């Protein structure tokens, strides 16, 4: 820094010196998040911590870049914990990448806020996809995913047989009483530290994804889906309160640990837990451990039929992408069945199309994974399709955590309703 002696000059000089310093520093990273200049399309994914899925996505990008010379897609992976926050902050500064992945239920919010552009000209291709893997808002499709995930009760046939518990089926799932009786029997045996592990150690979207279906199975819901004006009655009505009491009861009766271990699947494999409530992604490890003895059962019917969450990570393109045509071109290329198959296979999830399912081992007719597809088709409920969803999700997570820890059910649910209603109202009901 060169400073001349007069104070006036030094002030000017200092500011002048400060600017280039920081500019020189920022040129290096500046290009990474720009939209689609010079045929380069930036792509963001939440997979920094998930090697298998990242590699599968990377493969599609490599194929695409080799297939043509006009565009070049560049992948940038983020840690999942702060991915949504990164996207929100990038949207605020109009620095979203051209292509990005989105957790399904957030699509309406991101579409409403203007981050996402609708996927045009893909209707034919996407008509073959499972409805739960498509992100829609206001009659337009904004995203598609390669897979869906089903929630299952994982256990072993030998365990159920030993304690005389019926093996439930899609047609005849456990009833609430049957389920409770089974858990109590497992507890009474003293053979297991946890009769049931519902993976409460998972964070973020897992809570609404995994536990709001239980609320829905009781007959409650996160919000009234008719116009999404209020959560009153749905989230704090008698059915919801009943759910909350049951949910807390699992802990007080010692059927479910208040806090699961860091890796619930490991605890199940080690015999600590008799039944594990988890996503189908656990199938690989559990099968490796128990082979044909492993059972993937439908969740219990708590009154209103078994329910599981629908919709997982999906892909879309951003509104501020300077090369929409290029981004759409990639999206079309990447929607091929073979990629649906490869991503679903590498992530051990349910392929989004039937054609892809036929290519993935286990999902062919009569395959061992066919049952997952059945669950996804029969029991899946989308999380509320409103731009208010991200807020509803954080409220529900906090409320469910409080309830599990012993908060007064009615009071906790009333507070959640109050907050959700205030948020919907302050946004003019997202009209």
């Amino acid at each position, binding site marked *: *820094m060169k*400073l001349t*002696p*007069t*104070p*006036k000059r*030094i*002030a000017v000089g*200092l*500011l002048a010196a400060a600017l280039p310093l920081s500019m020189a520093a920022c040129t290096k990273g500046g290009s990474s998040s720009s939209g689609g200049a010079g045929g380069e399309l930036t792509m963001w994914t939440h997979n920094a911590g998930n090697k298998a899925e990242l590699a599968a996505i990377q493969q599609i990008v490599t194929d695409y870049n080799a297939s043509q010379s006009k565009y070049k897609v560049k992948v940038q992976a983020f840690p999942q914990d702060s991915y949504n*926050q990164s996207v*929100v902050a990038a*949207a*605020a500064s109009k620095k979203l990448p051209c292509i990005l992945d989105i957790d399904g239920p957030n699509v309406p919010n991101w579409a*409403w*806020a*203007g981050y996402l552009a609708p996927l045009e000209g893909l209707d034919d291709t996407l008509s073959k996809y499972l409805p739960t893997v498509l992100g829609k808002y206001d009659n337009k499709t904004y995203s598609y995913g390669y897979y869906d995930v089903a929630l299952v009760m994982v256990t072993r046939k030998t365990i159920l047989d030993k304690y005389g518990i019926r093996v439930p089926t899609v047609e005849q799932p456990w009833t609430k009483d049957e389920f409770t009786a089974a858990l109590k029997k497992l507890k009474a045996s003293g053979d297991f530290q946890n009769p049931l592990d519902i993976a409460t150690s998972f964070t973020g979207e897992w809570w609404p994804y995994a536990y709001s279906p239980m609320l829905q199975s009781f007959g409650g819901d996160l919000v009234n889906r008719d116009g999404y004006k209020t959560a009153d009655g749905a989230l704090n009505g008698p059915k919801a309160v009943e759910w909350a009491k049951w949910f807390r009861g699992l802990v007080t009766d010692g059927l479910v640990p*208040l*806090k699961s271990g860091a890796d619930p699947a490991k605890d199940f494999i080690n015999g600590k837990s008799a039944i594990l409530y988890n996503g189908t992604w656990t199938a690989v490890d559990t099968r490796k451990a128990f082979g044909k003895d492993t059972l993937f059962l439908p969740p219990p019917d708590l009154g209103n039929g078994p329910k599981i969450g629908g919709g997982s990570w999906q892909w879309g393109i951003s509104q501020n992408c300077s090369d929409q045509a290029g981004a759409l071109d990639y999206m079309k290329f990447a929607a091929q069945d073979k990629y649906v198959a490869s991503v679903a296979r590498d992530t051990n999830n349910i392929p989004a199309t039937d054609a892809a399912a036929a290519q993935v081992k286990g999902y062919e007719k009569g395959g061992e994974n066919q049952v997952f597809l059945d669950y996804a088709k029969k029991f899946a409920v989308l999380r509320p399709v409103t731009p208010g969803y*991200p*807020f509803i999700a*954080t409220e529900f997570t*906090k409320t469910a*955590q*409080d309830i599990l*820890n*012993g*908060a007064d059910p009615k*009071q906790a649910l009333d*507070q959640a309703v*109050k*907050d959700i209603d*205030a*948020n919907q109202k*302050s*946004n*003019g009901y997202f009209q």
Partner: protein
Amino acid sequence: MTTITSAESASATRRGRAARRGDKPGSTRTPVKGSRSSTTTALLMLAPAGVLLITFLLVPIGLTFGLAFTNARLISPRPAEFIGVDNFVRLFEDDTFWASLRNTVIFAAIIVPVQSACALGLALLVNVKMRGVNFFRTIYFLPVVTSMVVVSMLWLFMYQKNGLINQVLLKFGIEGPDWLGDPKTALLAIILMSAWQAMGFHMVIWLSGLQTIPGDLYEAAELDGAGTWEKFRYVTWPGLRATRTFILITITISAFALFTQVNIMTQGGPLDSTSTVVLMAVRTGFQQQQTGYASAISLVFFVLVLAVTLVNRRLTRDKDA
């Protein structure tokens, strides 16, 4: 440190250059006497810091006041609207807010006396001339230079049900609780680790206070037959008056700003038992994007900290008088 040496050498070259320039006729030759030109110089030297402080401190403070009365959101296609005191009405009806306020006050009320007293104890322990005392000072100070993010991750692991702390307690026949998972112990756990992290900082400040007390005061006290306690009570304690005020104020302000530990270790749970006002502001403002509501929380927080600081000042001033 490199930064220091470079600053020193830079000033050395500047000195040389100034000496050369001094020979030339010019503005620098005229002695600065007139108060007007002095004022101009002063303002110019203040300008860079002034501009930066206004832009990045005063403007955001002003924005907080403005946004608190709107329904502004971080990103929204809808423009922000003035909604009067709606945010405050909602805030005062929110149980989480009262829980956060309560936790913040409890945290401050416990950590201020405990941490300052323990830090004074540490300072007294290492305020001796003996071989290796520097080693102890260094060890006690290590957590201070370790980032709160790292410390939080480390303690998160140690506080687990079967974690290091409970395993150590088990050696003494104590079955430890699920520290962060139990609403009864979670805040206590946060208090302990926070005190652990910052204690070395205040130890050093006490230490510097202790060393300004003239040694002959102790000699005089000894001649009068004072024991260890009397010496502490009548020489050390009065001698630390200014240090006490400083420590009280710094610990109080940082206690009210409690955020990082909680955000990483418990996110405010279980049952809001570790939620704090700042955590709530960041959560509603950033995760939930309700900028207006978060600003209202911040505003209430400003008022609170201001009030506590004023009370603090008044109390210590009265004592000093």
